């Protein structure tokens, strides 16, 4: 490659890949990086359980997998249960230091797999459940899910979704599990900090990761990080964690209790919100503000 100077060409690589490059993710898709950051913290003694989703494809076919740790594929609704059984057996066979992580999309988490997720949380299974939320069934071609936000275009909501996003992190919080957190790929250290905390806790842990999707959200792939960042700065995606019932905002979200960027700044970058009316934007802004009023109460507690 002519662009690389000779002295750079010969240098030694000092950072290991925790999730291998050259996988089947779309350009600009944050999933490989999200997995890399996760596995950097979780370590080699981790099993990933992956239900039907984009990651099913990203994990490659029988000729090779980008994951350096064991992966167990799951049908859509089975991940939390497969992980439950896996962990029980790992403990039974003496691998008590192993970690089982479910890596599931929003559809597998909030829709079809919700019963298994809720069941595993109720049983307080010793697993880390990460929902990488790209806000629709992206792998099948952008169909709405329960976690698609109000107003968003999808192939099954051509005029924009009329219902609000299912507030899953709060629903999981109400399961009274030891750890619940939200995270964003725009704040990788905050995310890794949360994974680290989750790793150190026994029982059911849940991390909800907002994961922008360039083709699904209709934005140029170079804006992945900007979009993720604006979701946080506008308050659409608050960063927080709940440890044994104690709620705490993290990272920049701590500074957003009173004042946030208007949601329009987040919405205008994405083609899926292109047809929103003034009224729609007002509705979304009000919903975000209302959520923050709720968060205020949680912070006070």
């Amino acid at each position, binding site marked *: 490659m002519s662009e690389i100077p000779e002295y750079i060409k010969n240098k030694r*690589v000092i950072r290991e890949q925790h999730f291998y*490059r*050259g996988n089947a993710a779309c*350009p600009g898709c944050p999933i490989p990086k999200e997995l890399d950051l996760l596995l950097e913290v979780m370590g080699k003694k981790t099993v990933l359980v992956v239900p039907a989703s984009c990651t099913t494809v990203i994990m490659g076919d029988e000729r090779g*997998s980008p994951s350096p740790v064991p992966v167990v594929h799951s049908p859509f609704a089975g991940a939390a249960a497969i992980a439950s059984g896996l962990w029980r057996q790992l403990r039974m066979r003496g691998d008590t230091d192993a970690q089982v992580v479910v890596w599931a999309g929003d559809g597998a988490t909030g829709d079809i797999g919700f019963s298994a997720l809720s069941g595993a949380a109720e049983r307080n299974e010793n697993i880390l459940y990460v929902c990488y939320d790209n806000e629709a069934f992206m792998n099948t071609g952008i169909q709405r899910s329960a976690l698609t936000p109000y107003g968003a275009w999808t192939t099954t909501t051509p005029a924009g979704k009329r219902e609000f996003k299912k507030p899953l992190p709060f629903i999981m919080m109400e399961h009274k599990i030891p750890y619940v957190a939200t995270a964003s790929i725009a704040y990788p250290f905050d995310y890794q900090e949360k994974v680290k905390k989750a790793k150190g806790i026994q029982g059911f842990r849940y991390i909800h990761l907002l994961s922008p999707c360039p083709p699904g959200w209709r934005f140029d792939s170079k804006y992945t990080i900007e979009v993720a960042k604006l979701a946080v700065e506008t308050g659409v995606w608050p960063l927080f964690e709940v440890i044994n019932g104690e709620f705490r905002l993290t990272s920049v979200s701590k500074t957003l209790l009173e004042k946030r960027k208007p949601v329009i700044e987040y919405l205008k970058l994405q083609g899926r919100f292109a047809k929103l009316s003034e009224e729609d934007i007002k509705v979304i802004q009000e919903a975000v503000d209302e959520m923050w009023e709720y968060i205020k109460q949680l912070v006070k507690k």
Partner: protein
Amino acid sequence: MIISRPKIGSAGLTGTWRVERPVIDYSKCTKCRLCVIYCPENTIDLLEGFDVRIDYDYCKGCGVCSQICPAKAITMVPEVK
């Protein structure tokens, strides 16, 4: 038993997907490493002395690095001239 094993390039040489290529102007690079942190595909290597290098075999050309580089040291140039 249907299994596969870990492999770099499980989807082949994904560098061939690229329409635009990120090019680093090393004279502008401040070694801040944000491109390494944010490259979604993990194709920017961190080298000794905190230099960075793009692995063009696998870089899909998404452009995230050029967008987040605070020094504007990375530009996207068309692959086909």
